[in-house]
């Protein structure tokens, strides 16, 4: 049996990529523009907020605690050599609030919800439910996408705060129980280390990550082709693309905030 390799033109690939970026941009813009057009589907927003926010709570609690504890453990092993174990609180506080809290929460929610959105909307596309919705006079971007974008951005903000807090508690557990750091000293260091810039960085990121997760999940769902196999493909692509985009955006947002507020 002979295998034939199909050569793909680089121009065709570039065109496909440009088209995908254009469609994604249009869908994202449309999802934002819908906030200024009636109806707003607040019921759907609340339902999505429950699914995304409350549904993701167990995994966020678990990862927040673990990451905080691990951060403290790793920091302590280095700080101990210099007799600076009391600085654990500072490292955990900075690491969790500015970077790991938003990033880990974003990646966890991306894995759980970008895939969920892509598969749900993808199934609706292949079974013509999206066409039916349009045929019934309802705009699917308004009814399905905007509520998901609003709910994800809103709930990720609060999930990140929860993850940050649990990370600090996890760090405290390790610092206090394993390294004997005083409770008052730990929490005072945690509190005093943080400045406005750190909190601002830690709270602006989840809103951006929430927007990325929902728009990428919805984009791959709405552009699903090829039946159930296509739904599976869209689901995988949504998780990969949203995770990669979160990492890239995280780097540039951090850099931008450093550029605006200056380094510590």
């Amino acid at each position, binding site marked *: 049996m002979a295998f034939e390799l199909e050569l793909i033109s680089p121009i065709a690939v570039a065109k496909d990529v440009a088209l995908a970026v254009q469609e994604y941009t249009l869908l994202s813009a449309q999802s934002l523009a819908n906030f200024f057009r009636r109806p707003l589907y607040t019921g759907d927003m609340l339902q999505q907020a429950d699914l995304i926010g409350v549904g993701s709570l167990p995994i966020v609690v678990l990862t927040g605690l673990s990451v905080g504890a691990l951060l403290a453990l790793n920091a302590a092993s280095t700080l101990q050599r210099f007799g600076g174990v009391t600085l654990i609180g500072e490292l955990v506080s900075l690491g969790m609030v500015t970077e790991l809290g938003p990033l880990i929460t974003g990646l966890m929610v991306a894995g759980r919800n970008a895939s969920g959105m892509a598969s749900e909307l993808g199934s609706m596309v292949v*079974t013509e*439910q999206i*066409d039916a919705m*349009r045929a*019934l006079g309802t705009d699917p971007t308004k009814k399905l996408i905007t509520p998901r974008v609003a709910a994800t951005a809103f709930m990720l903000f609060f999930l990140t705060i929860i993850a940050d807090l649990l990370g600090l508690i996890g760090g405290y557990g390790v610092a206090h129980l394993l390294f004997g750091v005083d409770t008052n000293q730990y929490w005072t260091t945690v509190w005093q280390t943080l400045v406005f810039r750190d909190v601002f960085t830690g709270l602006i990121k989840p809103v951006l990550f929430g927007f990325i997760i929902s728009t990428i999940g919805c984009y791959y769902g709405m552009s699903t082709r090829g039946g159930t196999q296509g739904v599976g493909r869209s689901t995988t692509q949504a998780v990969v693309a949203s995770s990669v985009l979160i990492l890239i955006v995280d780097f540039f947002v951090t850099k931008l905030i450093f550029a605006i507020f200056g380094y510590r």
Partner: protein
Amino acid sequence: MPAPTLPSENATASVVSPSGYAIEFDNVSIAFDEHVVLDGISFRLQHGETKALFGVAGSGKSTLLKLAIGLLRPDSGRIYVLGEEVTCMSEQKLFELRRRVGIVFQESALFDSLQVYENVGFRLTEEGVPAEEIERRVREVLRFVELERTYDMRPSELSGGMRRRVAIARAIITEPEVLLYDSPTGGLDPVTSNTIVELIMKQRDVYKTSALMVTHRLQDAFTMATHEFDKATNQMVALPKGQLCGVPMSFLILRDARVIFDGDAHELATSRDEYIREYIS
């Protein structure tokens, strides 16, 4: 089998648009990835007329329906629905026009996360109709398709034929001026198919709704041409031999992306085209 009871005796007939035709295709072409699906398609659907659309699988029948309702845009040509040109209409304007057109999809396309009454009343809910009014109209239209007992069931609990009837109920709840049926009897057993045909016929004869019906089953279209719905007995009755139903009924056959036949049952039966003769034999 008698058809379900009528929703109301004083039901209003569909509103006739001031324009000449319910649907008009003027030299419409569309291709997907170099593959031409429809090439220079032209036909007209009169107000109150039912047109059955035939063609082998992949001949572009479903594409044609999606073009008619603006779910797809043609590469060239013009499409008029209820006097308005849909080819150059914005999506927002199309949403408004689609409220006057009903469509039954091939696989029903019911929203599987919603219950039957939510599916059927979807359009009314979107329009902000009060809940009591929605419930009354949903029950009425479910009674019309003889499925009132499925009111709070999920689509996954329904059989294929029941889903198709719920899809018809969803399409007709707002009394649309034009109905588009995409293979309404496809994949169903003969008895269920007959029930669906009877429902379509009832909609045609009672409400005089214009309809474009894609079908693979020639016998369904011929049944519609040779029978009419009798309101007194609440079931379809065969017309005397040689007599056709009072409502205009025509046939359109697609082949190789083009229209090869557009005429009534008599013209179809007497056609000398070899392909058509083979198709109807």
